[in-house]
């Protein structure tokens, strides 16, 4: 029995690893044409689905022209995204007979993902800390239970509802307050922040609550104030759990698709201000996956791979950090 159980546990653990590796390989294979074509330059290139004349030396091109024209004809889904120049020019160019190729760069969705996540964190972190300190240390038991329950409910709301609420209620307010567009990096980031807030607050509260009473009492017994006890005893004691809640929230914000799809504007344009619309990686994938083909499809996989590696790196870093902390 013991043996069987051990085997089962072991193979389950291995299975997880195999799935992970499988996903990575699939993504990598599908992204390979785009990786070969654009290389690491993909990450810093803001152009997405842009036709450029073949002759002009472009970004990173080390492939044969023949391959390019093939991928070119495959790609029928031409968006009307211009990059600053007037759309008239664009059409003129398109009708031109000079051979063109389509290039893809991931900078815009990458920037959109990173900045919407950072805005979400910057917004959610202080408020989540405030809420959890209130719930764990300040509020009377009954209120803490009630408010805590409400926050757990909030955490359970499906993200599409946050997206709809954000678009119809929150976006106009953001535009009024900060100017600029209703759908923007800022709107998406703030609503993402509202989304991860309850999650972060609930986990942080739980880890603060694991601080033994006797430890807090020891600090009070030395003449500490409530603020000092929170700062010097509760925070250090529950640090690992708090960082864990931040990392998990970060992972959630990075991969969030539905709510952001409603709010970020979904255009492949580099934002100049946080009140500009743009796009994030998950939204770019969800919006374009249906119609994409050829190099466009491969570039989407390249984006997916980047997201995968980013999330994986963050989680691994967190795990590594926890292990080191737990051992010290």
């Amino acid at each position: 029995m013991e043996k069987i159980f051990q085997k089962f546990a072991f193979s389950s653990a291995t299975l997880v690893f195999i799935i992970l590796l499988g996903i990575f390989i699939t993504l990598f294979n599908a992204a390979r044409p785009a990786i070969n074509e654009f290389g690491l330059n993909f990450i810093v290139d803001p152009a997405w689905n842009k036709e450029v004349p073949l002759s002009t030396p472009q970004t990173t091109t080390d492939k044969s022209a023949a391959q390019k024209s093939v991928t070119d004809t495959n790609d029928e889904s031409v968006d009307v995204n211009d990059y600053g120049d007037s759309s008239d020019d664009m059409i003129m160019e398109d009708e031109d007979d000079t051979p063109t190729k389509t290039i893809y760069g991931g900078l815009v969705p990458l920037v959109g993902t990173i900045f919407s996540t950072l805005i979400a964190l910057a917004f959610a972190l202080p408020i989540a800390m405030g809420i959890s300190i209130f719930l764990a240390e300040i509020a009377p038991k009954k209120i803490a239970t009630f408010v805590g329950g409400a926050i757990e409910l909030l955490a359970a709301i499906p993200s599409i509802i946050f997206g709809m609420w954000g678009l119809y209620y929150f976006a106009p307010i953001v535009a009024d307050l900060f100017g600029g567009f209703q759908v923007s990096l800022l709107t998406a980031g703030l609503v993402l922040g509202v989304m991860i807030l309850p999650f972060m607050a609930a986990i942080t509260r739980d880890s603060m609550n694991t601080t033994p009473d006797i430890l807090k009492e020891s600090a009070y017994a030395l003449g500490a104030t409530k603020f000092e006890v929170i700062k010097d005893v509760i925070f250090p004691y529950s640090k690992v759990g708090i960082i864990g809640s931040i990392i998990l929230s970060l992972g959630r914000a990075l991969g969030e698709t539905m709510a952001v799809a409603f709010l970020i504007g979904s255009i492949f344009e580099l934002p100049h201000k946080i009140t500009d619309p743009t796009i994030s990686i998950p939204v770019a994938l969800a919006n374009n996956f249906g119609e994409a083909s050829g190099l466009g499809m491969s570039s989407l996989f390249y984006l997916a791979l980047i997201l995968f590696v980013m999330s994986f790196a963050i989680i691994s870093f967190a795990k590594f950090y926890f292990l080191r902390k737990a051992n010290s």
Partner: protein
Amino acid sequence: MLAMNIEKFSFTYPGVDEPSLKNITLPIEKNNITALIGPSGCGKSTLLRSMNRIHDLYPGNKYDGKIELLDETNKKYKNILKIKKENEFIKLRQQVGMIFQKPTPFPMSIFDNVAYGLKIAGIRNKSELSDRVEAALKGSALWNEVHDRLNKSAMGLSGGQQQRLCIARAVAVKPEVLLFDEPTSALDPISTSAIEELIVELKKDVSIAIVTHNMQQASRISDYTAFMYLGDLIEYDKTENIFLNPKEKRTEDYITGRFG
């Protein structure tokens, strides 16, 4: 002279009808060790936790009577049950320190643990801090074991060392009174006797009240002993009188091991 004077003191926890302490009158002699003994649940911890008002971290307790504390000038007594403001609570807890049943090192270095009470009391001067930390660690018989790793985490110390660290931490702020709530109940015999020696050593500088369910411990280290039962103080006397020739039947039954 009395360091503290408990008079007609009653205490009731919130949501409980019966008081957990009834009409307790107990002197705490200055620079002496007073042991509180009695069966589990008789109210020893409750009484001790009233003496620094640590109960007040939780709302809804009811106090009656008075608990007086001799102030630093050794001239006046102050009723600590009258305390309401936060800064008065802080002052009380600097004057009346507490050591708990289990060692409670903070998640910080050994040095920072001992310096903690000093830092929150506003002492910032580096050399004063390190002098007082060293003095407290020496006074707690821990200096020799930790002087070369003051910056290491206190969590790495053994249980007995951690408890002596907690004593050093309490001693560092120079309290008038130290309250010990079964300080050795989580420790092995060797660590226990080290702590006992230390407590006897400490009474030069502070007045001590110690809760213990170990009667040998009470008889070994204390000068006065109070026997409590079901929230009442049954008998209080010099320790040798309590153990050799108790006046109350219930005291005798308890110390001879007939119940408890």
